């Protein structure tokens, strides 16, 4: 585990989960794995924070869950995005986009100094 790890800013985990689930019904373990793979191990979500987050999103009706079977034939709880979840994801991504551009801009400006 040599790759650098980042602390996720508040609220970002929800967004990442929503995005991951947006690709299709998926269970909690797979979400953790995908986040880790896609972020090239930068984002590591311990189960201790993943599951409370999933349950919170489910309670806010951004996700729905169903019990289904994995390819290996085991029972698992699959999460799926709801319409509200999708709307939330879009709004969230857009504002994240804006925020990160702005943050990048300001940081870039600071490096170059005033012209």
């Amino acid at each position, binding site marked *: 585990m040599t790759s650098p790890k980042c602390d996720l800013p508040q609220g970002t985990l929800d967004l990442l989960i929503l995005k991951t689930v947006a690709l299709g019904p998926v269970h*909690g*373990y797979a979400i953790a794995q995908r986040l880790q793979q896609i972020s090239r191990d930068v984002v590591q979500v311990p189960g201790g924070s993943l*599951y*409370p987050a999933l349950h919170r999103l489910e*309670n806010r009706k951004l996700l729905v869950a169903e019990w289904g079977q994995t390819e290996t034939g085991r029972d698992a*709880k699959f999460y799926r995005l709801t319409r509200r979840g999708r709307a939330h994801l879009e709004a969230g991504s857009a504002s994240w986009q804006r925020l990160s551009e702005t943050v990048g801009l300001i940081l870039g400006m600071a490096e170059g100094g005033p012209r």
Partner: protein
Amino acid sequence: MMLPRWLRRDDREVNLDRELSFHIEEKVAELVRSGVSEEDARRRVRLEFGAAEQVKEECRDVRPAYWAETFLRDIRYAWRNLRRNPGFAAVAIATLALGIGGLTAMFSAFDTILIRPLPYADPNRLVMIWDDLSKSDDRTKSDPAPAEWLEWRRLNTVFTDIASTQPTEATLSGDAAPEQVPARKATGNLWSVLGVKPLIGRVFSEEEDRNGARVAVISYGLWQRRYGGSPDVLGRKIDVNDTPYEVIGVMPHEFYFLPARDIDLWMPASFPAWMRTAFGWHDEQVVARLKTGVTREQAEQSMVALSLQLTAKAFPRPHQTIVTSLREDIAGKTQTALVVLLAASAALLLIACVNLANLLMSRGLARSRELAVRVALGAGRGRLAAQFLTESLVLAGLGALAGLALAMPAMRFLSRLVPETMGPVRLTLDWRVLAFSAASAIAAALAFGLAPALRGSWTGLQHGLREGGRGAAGARSYWFQHSLIVIETALAVMLLTSGGLLLETFRHLQNTDLGVRREKLLTFEIPLFRYKEFHRRDAFLTAVLEKIRAIPGVINAGATSQLPLKPNDLSATFYWIAGQPHESERNQVALIRLVTRDYFPTIGARLREGRFFEESDRHSDAQVAIVNETFANRNFAGRSAIGAQFKFGDTGDKGYWYRIVGVVKKIHEVGMEEAARPAVYLLHGQGNKQLMIPPGGIAVRTAVEPASIVSAIRQAIWSIDKNQPMWRVQTLKDIFAHQLTTPTESTALMGAFALLALLLASIGLYGVLSYAVTQRTSEIGVRMALGATSREILLTFSKRGLVLTVAGLAIGLGLSIVTSRFLSALLYGFRPDLIPTITVVSLILLSVALLACLGPARRASRVDPVIALRSE
């Protein structure tokens, strides 16, 4: 017993388990695929995943209304815990049941008698107005005069209206067997002042009152009893004292009004002209309705001024008035008794709570292992405290249920506290009482659960998985527990002292010298309206008394215008002693009794000086009188009253001078709660032969059981006049016992509370000491190994218990001195000596405490050092 389904684990919990274990299994499988041994993989996953219980708890925390779920789960847990410790549960629930049950029952009485609205319109604005004829500062309520009522009504500025009632006698005859019924005359505006309506028919008007209409309003009880509840009673002419009255209305079942709940007949007062101007005729009871925005105090101020002005102008004896709330007059002494008893029952519940707090505290320490495990599994301090509190709530809830079961029979006993003047009410378990009970259960749960909950959660965190319970927490918890013991002992001492004071007062009242020999004295009343003319009345009375004396078993018989122990007899007459300035008549009032010659010997009155009436007095023109000690002391302090003369007020030059021939030891003429008053006894048949109320009260001294000759007496009376009813047949003992109802009940209740408090306090002491011995077994072992004798160990532990007891005793006695002042209203003017009560209470407490200490202390002294040290 199974828990209801909604209290059991639900599917969500199962699913949460499945989801998390799926995650863990997948992770382990993945690691195993990458070549890690399964054991290693599991360890790594556990480390990475964190404590499974904690993750679960966090998942649950995000559920909506999860607190409710937690609460239910805690209840389930508490339930299991209690079932696992049935002994503890039984003690705790029984303790709480006593506390909550007692308080609930007392509250129901308090609520019914003092809080619930009286059955009148806007009852809080109703007040009674009394004359204050006393000379000194101690205010004594006296009945006002009709003339005062008229003037007050005309001139007052604080009442919307004022009504008045006056005593009367009523014999119903004609339509059925002659019957004497409680009756009252009332001014025509009584109904509108009270704001009451008849059940059927109508009430009489002010015009009917003025015109002397012969109409009557009857009670629901009389309607049902004598007229079969038939509506055609309206318009019927009934014979009241041989005069036809028309029944115009029936009052509803719940109606009652002062001075007694059982008044059956209301008739117009129709004051004759002379009474409308007589300020000396004090037999009214006056009720008034306050104007909106006027307080009782303002009304009293205004009325005092008005009364002084009225009486100063027209009459030579200005006096003040007292304005009391109607509730106060109806509740009477009961009010104070209820307040005191409610406070006592609250104190008992408090003791129960303190006791339980202690018990839970000890248990909390004993449960430190369990707590430590729960902390290790991820339970936070808040969760632990909530769990503890839930356990307390479950206990309190069960205690409240058991308490209600206790309260119901208790309420039947307490209904005897409902005053005579209030009626017909029943103490019931309604929503108010239930709500109160629930509230007191929750308050109790917080009171006894909070400290152990906080301490328990703290202990849980501190101890970790450390072995044993002998850490620093020990000393601190002892300190806390010890203060709890001191508190509960102090409260118990307070209750015991109060109980002792009441008991002493009760005994004092029981032994009151009534001035009358109580044993085997039968009393009853015969209405004498048929014998208005003096000679006929005198002949009839003489004949009746002769016949009664002739009955085997009768020793003597006499008549009086008013039998002793008459509560609320506020009638009074002004008098004037010869040789004193005429102004001395101001504010000098005395009770007047008209008696036959044999009355004093019959009741067993005792002379202080002079003589009783003699047969020769009846034929003598010289008017004679006998006065009581109070009269003599007030007017002839330090010298003999014999030979002195007095006359009654309002008689002017016409009145007779009465010469005092005897002074009797005080006869308790008025109610037990009232102070003795000056009284004057005149011989029936002397002087003004039309004077005042006829002597219809008969006293019969018997050699046999009084009840056994009642029918013989009735036959004797009927042999002279077969239409003559006799009523209020009671022995003097019964009248006396009846008057002592409130002190008897309050003493019994206070005594019960005090004994329960003592029991709880000693259980508490025993519990804490036992626990300390258990906790310190190894320490005792060490000390014994170092040479301490078992005697020394015994002393150490007994001393500790006794020190606590003495501390509690000292504080409790301090409290008692404060609370005894509040009790004084219940002590009937009697000032019991605190010292003997305190001494007895201290002795009882110390011996009970000694017993409670001895058990644990002996156990400590028998510790075998070898075993004790090995148990370390």
